[in-house]
């Protein structure tokens, strides 16, 4: 019988970190992630983990220390949010380029300016091209489960890439929920022991990390990095299945809800998927054939699974909680729409921006988005590709 506890998202991830017991954690506090780092510091202080905890002076140094520690050959974790992630930006690319399996929890928070501490996805979307795997969580349970799976995915010999596990700031990070936890031994056995490849601490085989790499090799190195991240999808799927066997909670790249016979669907990330389930149930009661596609894995983008799930539909509402200024639609919209270009049949797609800076989204907003999508399909013409939910115009 699984043990059930009341955890907010931060506590759930801190507890996963305790069970993972990494060699090194280097982290800097930032709202709304702080609670996670505080809890981990308590585990260190109480001797409940034997991890070394580096209390760095900035997020840039947090990621730099993680890179040094991971290159030295051990298991490394960190956590951040928003501007902290932005300060790491330079180092994110370097961590991925060095193929270091660092696992980082990110509580999604709006990026300044103006300064705002609440949820949107501007932070991790800004890092979507950095070469990291991105796993989104719908609730505290998923944040916990994804964190444990992330270790196994990142360290897989066919992957060896850093992963960020995200959870919506405050909405998940600070809301106490029912969370089923595994036994320490189960986690330990699931993730297994880790031995870094080409560690700096191997004195007999000295390696040079981070040389200058010019026009004669850089391009080939980027090509191999493209292949590395593309090859992750089957590993993420396999680990999700293995985790399901252990916990009873199966994980896939994406998850459909009432999609089987649906004609219209919303595509969303994170906690909004929970809100969308409510909206869908309510519309279903009214006889509407609607569903949800939850994107768990955003990087690498599971193109084929997206086509398979969405191609049969008539219309799609893509919900974006961040903006790509000057671009045609938000990051999720752009990806989904691009994937469907080659689909056997192409549904109409509308992009809805919502929830920036922590603005709440309600089931009625999502119902409205689905209804608008249906209207567009029935009219046979999209007048407006981009719309807003919950905004005062």
């Amino acid at each position, binding site marked *: 019988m699984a043990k059930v506890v009341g955890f907010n998202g931060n506590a759930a991830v801190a507890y996963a970190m305790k069970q993972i017991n990494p060699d090194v954690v280097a982290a800097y506090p930032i709202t709304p992630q702080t609670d996670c780092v505080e809890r981990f510091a308590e585990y260190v202080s109480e001797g409940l983990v034997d991890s070394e905890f580096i209390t760095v002076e900035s997020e840039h140094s947090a990621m730099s220390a993680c890179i040094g520690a991971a290159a030295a050959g051990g298991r490394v974790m960190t956590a951040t949010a928003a501007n902290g992630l932005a300060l790491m930006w330079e180092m994110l690319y370097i961590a991925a380029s060095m193929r270091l399996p660092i696992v980082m929890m990110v509580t999604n928070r709006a990026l300044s300016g103006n300064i705002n501490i609440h949820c949107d996805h501007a932070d991790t979307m800004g890092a979507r091209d950095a070469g990291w795997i991105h796993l989104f969580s719908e609730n505290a349970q998923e944040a916990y489960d994804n964190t444990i799976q992330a270790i196994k995915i990142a360290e897989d010999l066919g992957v060896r890439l850093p992963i960020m596990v995200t959870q919506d700031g405050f909405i998940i990070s600070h809301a106490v929920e029912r969370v089923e936890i595994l036994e320490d031994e189960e986690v330990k056995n699931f993730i297994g022991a880790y031995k870094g490849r080409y560690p700096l601490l191997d004195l007999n085989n000295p390696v040079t990390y981070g040389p200058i790499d010019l026009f004669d*090799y850089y391009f080939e190195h980027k090509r191999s990095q493209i292949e590395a991240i593309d090859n992750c999808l089957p590993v993420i799927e396999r680990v999700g299945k293995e985790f399901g066997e252990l916990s009873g909670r199966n994980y896939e790249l994406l998850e459909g809800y009432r999609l089987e016979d649906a004609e219209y669907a919303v595509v969303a990330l994170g906690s909004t998927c929970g809100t969308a389930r409510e909206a869908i149930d309510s519309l279903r009661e009214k006889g509407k054939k609607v569903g949800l596609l939850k994107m768990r894995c955003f990087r690498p983008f599971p193109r084929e699974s997206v086509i398979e799930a969405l191609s049969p539909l008539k219309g799609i509402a893509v919900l974006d909680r961040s903006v790509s200024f000057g671009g045609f639609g938000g990051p999720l919209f752009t990806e989904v729409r691009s994937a469907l270009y080659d689909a056997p049949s192409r549904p109409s797609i509308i992009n809805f921006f919502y929830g920036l800076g922590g603005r709440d989204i309600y089931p009625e907003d999502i119902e409205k988005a689905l209804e608008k999508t249906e209207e567009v399909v029935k009219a046979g013409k999209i007048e407006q590709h981009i719309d807003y939910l919950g905004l005062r115009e």
Partner: protein
Amino acid sequence: MPPLKELAKRPERLTSGHRLCAGCGAPIAIRLILAAADKPVVAANATGCLEVSTTIFPYTAWNIPWIHSAFENAAATITGVETMYRAKKKRGEIDEDIYFVAFGGDGGTYDIGLQSLSGAWERGHRFVYVCYNNEAYMNTGIQRSSATPLGAWTTTSPVGKVLPGKTQWRKNLTEIAVAHDIPYVAQSVPSNWRDLTLKAEKAFHTEGPAFLNVLASCNRGWRHLPADTLKVNQLAVDCCIWPLYEVENGEYRLTYKPREKKPVEEWLKVQGRFQHLFSPAYRYLIDEFQAYVDREWERLLEKCGETKK
């Protein structure tokens, strides 16, 4: 410290074949420092001349484990490596004793890397940070840094009709290190191999952070002949512009006192970057330079207990 003959027999940790310029002071300093390590060394490097010239892929001049990740974070990076070492030692996965060293130029140390260095000092990691200080951003082509002395020409402090080169004095980073109350801080120079080697050995033996600020001339940026590097470096010491001293657990000690304190002009006149100071319009800057150096020198003598009462 073992005799020089013994030191020379130690394995070359930075090999020949790197692409640093003829006359560069940095590799002389780095090789002397690494030869002083009596145990294995793992190094981190900030972006800069030393990094780009020793590791052009697929080649490397490093015979020791070495990591470069970015410009402003050599200190944070090496503390990550050092912390993993402690984690693994605690778990019984490693038993060798290893020294950890970070190398950065003055740009990567005085300027963009100071925050991460300060953080690493405060946390008290056991590592040696070496600033090979050539007094400007030489890797990008001679731009001023906060280590560049007053009046120096650089490409971002050019000499023009209204400006005489750099208009500010340099930051005293060695004293900033001392203010962190770390166990070992020293200034040295490759022209005095014995002084540098002794200090490097002490730094490696320090149980906690150690800082070596090493003046290492860049003949391209300072505008002197490649063969004159050590001579120009030693002149900085003999003019008391770059005093050799150490601060061990808060105790100051002057490690070299010039027999005769030479005027700063002697150092300025051998470098092209200061030539404009000798025109009548800018002569006053030499006097300011001298006054500044005199004041700093007197303060240092006092701290070192060298002032005659």
